[in-house]
């Protein structure tokens, strides 16, 4: 026994780690999307969600209005703050989009025109870019990046930019500043979490409508089959009549009939009798498709109810209707709850039946159709919006799932373990 006990403790550590690993792997996808649904859209494309807690560095171009330009000798100076909203933190800046972080804060970034000697001895003018401490003087190199010697003392300032950490800038140009100059700053933005994505999809993107549609489809499609199935299950479990065995077998057989078969004939029939593609149509369809499982689950459960209760009630003169409503129905609550959860999750999450039996205009889209047919196409790269939409659609099922897990598990066990 000793070695077994020893095995167990080392094995238990491995077990814990293995389960932890699996749980993390299982959760990562959902957590990633959940985190992203709260992030600012710009930040999502700058850093991964795993870095969501850290500040994001992003380069932005600002074009300050040329207001309050003053002349300083031969130069024109524009001063202001790069942050329109007022606050922020600059970590670098530059004058071109090619290198937006050419200089660090506390430096001045300047373009100078210098005279260089070409390889063939000709003199030429070239522009060089240098960054130097804002309170110091520029030190000019002896040669350009191409290796052409620069004539000492030939540098003439064209334009320069100095930006402080708080966003205050001074822009100097050798000509008049009549149009807004393009300045580039690299800003460090604090992590930006908020409800803005949710607010957008629920107000302007029509997800609110889709949510209501889903709810409208789901509730009747859950309640009605339960009622119908409960009576049928009682008949199949506790009433004696010829052909009962065959009916039970038929229900078991219908459990696996693929939904796909019903789509074309039933839609044709709906169109013929005037229901067409409508909410009424989808309620009926969900009722039909949910019934086999409902009857099967409820009958299995009712079969297990104690025989003496039901028989003594019958001996006391209760009719089948009374036995059903007063005894069997209350006792079957767990099974009713199990099936209700199943049917609720199934109809809430359904895409296929909604695509076929509901009208295809945007007023009738349920959330799954909205996401799959509209948002994924039109907002394909906008992950903040997509993530928020996904979580709006899975929030209710998740709440139901965690609140009623006991009944769900019970129903699963009743449905598949014999």
């Amino acid at each position, binding site marked *: 026994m000793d070695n077994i006990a020893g095995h167990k403790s080392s094995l238990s550590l491995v*077990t814990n780690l293995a389960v932890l690993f699996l*749980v993390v792997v299982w959760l990562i996808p959902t957590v990633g999307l959940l985190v992203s649904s709260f992030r600012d859209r710009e930040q999502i494309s700058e850093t991964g969600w795993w870095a969501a807690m850290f500040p994001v560095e992003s380069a932005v171009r600002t074009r300050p209005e040329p207001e309050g330009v003053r002349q300083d000798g031969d130069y024109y100076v524009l001063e202001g703050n790069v942050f329109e909203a007022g606050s922020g933190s600059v970590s670098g800046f530059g004058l071109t989009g090619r290198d937006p972080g050419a200089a660090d804060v506390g430096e001045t970034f300047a373009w100078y025109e210098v005279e260089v000697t070409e390889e063939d001895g000709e003199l030429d003018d070239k522009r060089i870019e240098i960054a130097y401490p804002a309170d110091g003087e520029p030190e000019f190199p002896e040669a350009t990046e191409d290796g052409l010697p620069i004539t000492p003392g030939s540098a003439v300032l064209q334009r320069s930019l100095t930006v402080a950490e708080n966003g205050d800038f001074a822009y100097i140009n050798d000509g008049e500043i009549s149009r807004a100059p393009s300045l580039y700053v690299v800003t460090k933005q604090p992590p930006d979490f908020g409800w803005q994505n949710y607010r957008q999809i629920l107000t302007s993107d029509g997800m609110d409508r889709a949510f209501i549609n889903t709810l409208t489809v789901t509730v*009747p499609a859950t309640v009605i*089959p339960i009622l119908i199935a409960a009576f*049928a299950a009682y008949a199949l479990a506790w009433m004696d009549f010829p052909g009962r065995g065959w009916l039970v077998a038929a229900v078991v057989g219908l459990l696996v009939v*693929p939904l796909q078969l019903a789509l074309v*004939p039933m839609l044709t029939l709906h169109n013929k009798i005037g229901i067409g593609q409508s909410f009424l149509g989808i309620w009926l369809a969900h009722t039909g498709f949910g*019934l086999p499982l409902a009857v099967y689950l409820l009958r299995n459960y009712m079969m297990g109810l104690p025989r003496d209760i039901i028989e003594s009630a019958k001996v006391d003169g209760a009719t089948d209707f009374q036995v059903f409503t007063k005894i069997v129905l209350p006792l079957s609550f767990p099974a009713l709850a199990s099936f209700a959860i199943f049917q609720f999750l199934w109809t809430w999450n359904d895409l*296929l039946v909604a695509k076929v039996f509901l009208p295809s205009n945007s007023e009738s889209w349920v959330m799954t159709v909205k996401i799959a047919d509209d948002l994924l196409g039109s907002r394909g790269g906008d992950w903040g919006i997509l993530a928020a939409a996904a979580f709006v659609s899975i929030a209710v099922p998740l709440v139901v799932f965690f609140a009623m897990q006991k009944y769900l598990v019970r129903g699963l066990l009743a449905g*598949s373990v014999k």
Partner: protein
Amino acid sequence: MSPILQGILTIIIGVGGCVGYFYLSNIVLDRFIFPPRKDDQGRNIARATAVRPWLFLMPAILALGLYLVYPVLGSFLRSLYNRSGNEFIGLGNYVQMFSEHGFRVALFNNFLWVLFVPAASTFFGLLVAQLTDRLRWGSIAKSLIFMPMAISFVGASLIWKFVYAVDPNIGIINAVRDYFGLAAIDPLQIPFWNNFFVMIIMVWMQTGFAMVILSAALRGIPEETIEAAIIDGANPFQIFFRIKIPQIAGTIAVVWTTITFLTLKVFDIVYTMTGGNFDTEILPSYMMSYMFRDDGRATAVAFVIMLIVTPVMIYNIRQARKEL
């Protein structure tokens, strides 16, 4: 009328109608059709008792017959007609379909799905069920792994699209590749293997189901058999593979077939992930690509799916008959 109002009204009418039907039909049966009066009291009670089951069953039989039995026949008949439904073409749709590359790809991919998804889900489900069996935080772990079950296929697809995103700042797979200096890939466009990347979503969702059922089955194994094995010196792996697995083999089979059926019906994942592009089509999504365009072809595909599940359906019915 707003859909909410319509919905509330439907619940009232639907529920009220159902309750009213059951209640009133019983009264009508007992008071008017077969009233237990003096002269034929016994006979009429017996008659009412014989009719009552059918009252209880009527709505269910109607709904099941209309929405599940009739379509089997209706779909088959429709599949024998051409696109517009006015010309009988026999098995033309089937012949045409089997000669097309797209259908054969879908059939082959469906074959992969049916092999891989139930096997992987059952494997992971069993693994988690066994590992969490004696764990103090086992129920939390199980509940978290079970969670994807509550999510819609569309939602799950979106979650995984995010994982598979090509941009290393968005998709975690490419972020890891980027970290090791590898070029970004698009998992959904790698020929053949993209099928498996799509299937992973289904495995991710179904593992919880397999786990819940198998976990209960493992709990149901009699303690004595395990104790006896320990006393005989079996190590944990021997106990698992030689003692536990054989005792839950029946449950494993049930889990396996249940997931197989689901796999044959799910079109949402392929539809959302790839739209059937890059040779990832499976039969249900292939069928939907013909829905609204060619009913003859769509019903033919649906009937092929039906044929695939028929053997198990017959087996299930036989089992149910045996138990009665």
